[in-house]
């Protein structure tokens, strides 16, 4: 598979400087200046760890780096400007969210396989939940730059998280509590879109229950979907065998080297972990 959307990263971990930190509701967006790595493909990810004080937080963690899909990437100066979308939900993301401009970050990447183009005259339909918004932003940038429409549907917990929708162009928003946009699930919006025009490929990223709902909906309607999954991951490059996902045909694959973007048809269901 020479045409798979996988750009190889430099071997090993490198240290980059944070050039910008901004808050978007409950989310933090960090921008870094990567002078050694290439431009990633949409859907690829990086392993991130703070260069200082990685450890010693809640429960004396974090210890391992954390995997994040790239939110945006562009050439800037002598290198590449990468952006990542974070939400403080545990010891790793708590530490990353407290980093400031000028702080240093260990990164490894880009890693994994990203999104492939819809093809066959189908339109792309982007569907995200929470921090799963991130890979859809870079993917929408690419689709729009090619002149392809790329409507986006995003689900968030509440109005405090809904500002995450500003990362995409013209996203329709649903919130669990109805405090912003449609009161309900993002899959309600997806069903409406597919009712209107089912000749689409759905690109989705979000929490497992949402991804499973997207997968099941697409399967029921015979619509292709590409799911960017997440999993606890120790290494990101196939060493630890920790991030496996069971396949419909039996057996497992490692999300880090065979994903994180998978054809939804390969899964009997999206695992809960």
């Amino acid at each position, binding site marked *: 598979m020479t045409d798979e959307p996988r750009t190889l990263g430099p071997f090993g*971990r490198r240290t980059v400087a944070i050039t910008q930190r901004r808050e978007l509701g409950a989310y933090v967006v960090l921008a870094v200046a990567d002078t050694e790595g290439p431009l990633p493909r949409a859907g690829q990810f990086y392993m991130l760890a703070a260069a200082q004080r990685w*450890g010693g937080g809640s*429960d004396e963690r974090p*210890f391992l780096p954390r995997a994040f899909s790239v939110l945006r990437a562009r050439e800037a100066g002598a290198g590449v400007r990468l952006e990542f979308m974070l939400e403080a939900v545990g010891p790793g993301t708590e530490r990353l969210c407290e980093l400031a401009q000028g702080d240093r970050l260990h990164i490894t990447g880009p890693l994994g396989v990203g999104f492939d183009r819809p093809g066959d005259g189908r339109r792309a339909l982007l569907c995200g939940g929470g921090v799963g918004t991130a890979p859809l932003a870079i993917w929408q940038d690419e689709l729009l730059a090619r002149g392809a429409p790329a409507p986006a549907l995003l689900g968030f917990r509440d109005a405090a998280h809904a500002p995450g929708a500003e990362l995409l162009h013209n996203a329709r928003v649903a919130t669990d509590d109805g405090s912003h946009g449609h009161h309900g699930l993002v899959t309600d919006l997806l069903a409406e879109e597919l009712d209107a025009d089912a000749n689409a490929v759905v690109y989705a990223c979000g929490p497992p229950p949402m991804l499973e709902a997207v997968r099941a909906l697409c399967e029921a309607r015979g619509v292709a979907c590409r799911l960017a999954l997440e999993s606890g991951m120790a290494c990101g490059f196939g*060493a630890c065998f920790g991030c496996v*996902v069971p396949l419909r045909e039996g057996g497992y694959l490692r999300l880090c080297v065979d994903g994180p973007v998978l054809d939804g048809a390969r899964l009997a269901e999206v695992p809960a972990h």
Partner: protein
Amino acid sequence: MSVAFCGLRLAHPIVNGSGTFDAIAARRAFGDALVEHFPFAAFVSKTITLEPRQGNPPPRLYETPAGLINSIGLPNKGLRGYLDSDLPELARLPVPLITNVMGSTAEELCTLVEALDDRDEVDALELNVSCPNVRTGLDIGADPVELAAVLREVRPRTGKPLIVKLTPNTADVGAAAQAAQDAGADAVSLINTLRAYAPHPERAGVPWLGNATGGLSGPAIRAVALAQVREVAGRVAIPVVGMGGVQTGVHAARMLEVGATLVAVGTESFRDPAAGTRISRELDDLFAKSGDNIG
């Protein structure tokens, strides 16, 4: 700083722990740069079993204070898959290849060892004996008598160097090392992971890991590893591969100081894929500064 080990000449004393680095997957992730800057002085394969294994159901990982519990379950393509598809790729690495095998009976281990003895690409064998003998129910490596009995059958099946990877989950690791030496092992390696349990963060009494228990690794076990390597190195004359929580050149030097000939890096490679290169460089710098040869 080259090192002699079981008749092999290694460029430096840093290797990988079995099952902590998949050179084939890493090449998919990083391309030829992996081969050009290969981080280890020898490559130790993940554990190969006679039949293919899918591994344990997820979740397989649990982060602890300064460490990681894993319950991977030795997924591998089985002996045939290893010989046919993995070995030709691993043979392209620029360093000697040590193949790690596990069997649940002496017969299985003999079959594995004989098949690998035939292959020139394999420079040495490592036996993973952290596995219950299905006949006796005893953990082969935990019981010195059992370990010696298995090794006496396996040893004559190969002329290649035979390393026994000892389990730390035993009352007397020195006795196990002694038994391995007496039964003809060329070297021992330790420590394997420490048996550990990860509670589900939200559901009382429920295990987090798909297989309930796993093995603890990382800096959390470094002090235990140093104690066991020191004890074993004091007990046997054969070389010792020391591992457990090594993250820096200083940590590697400590392993050498307590008697290791080689130092294996495992969990640290998860945090930094090129950790082996960094640690061997740091070790070189330490030697250059101290002017004496700790190894």
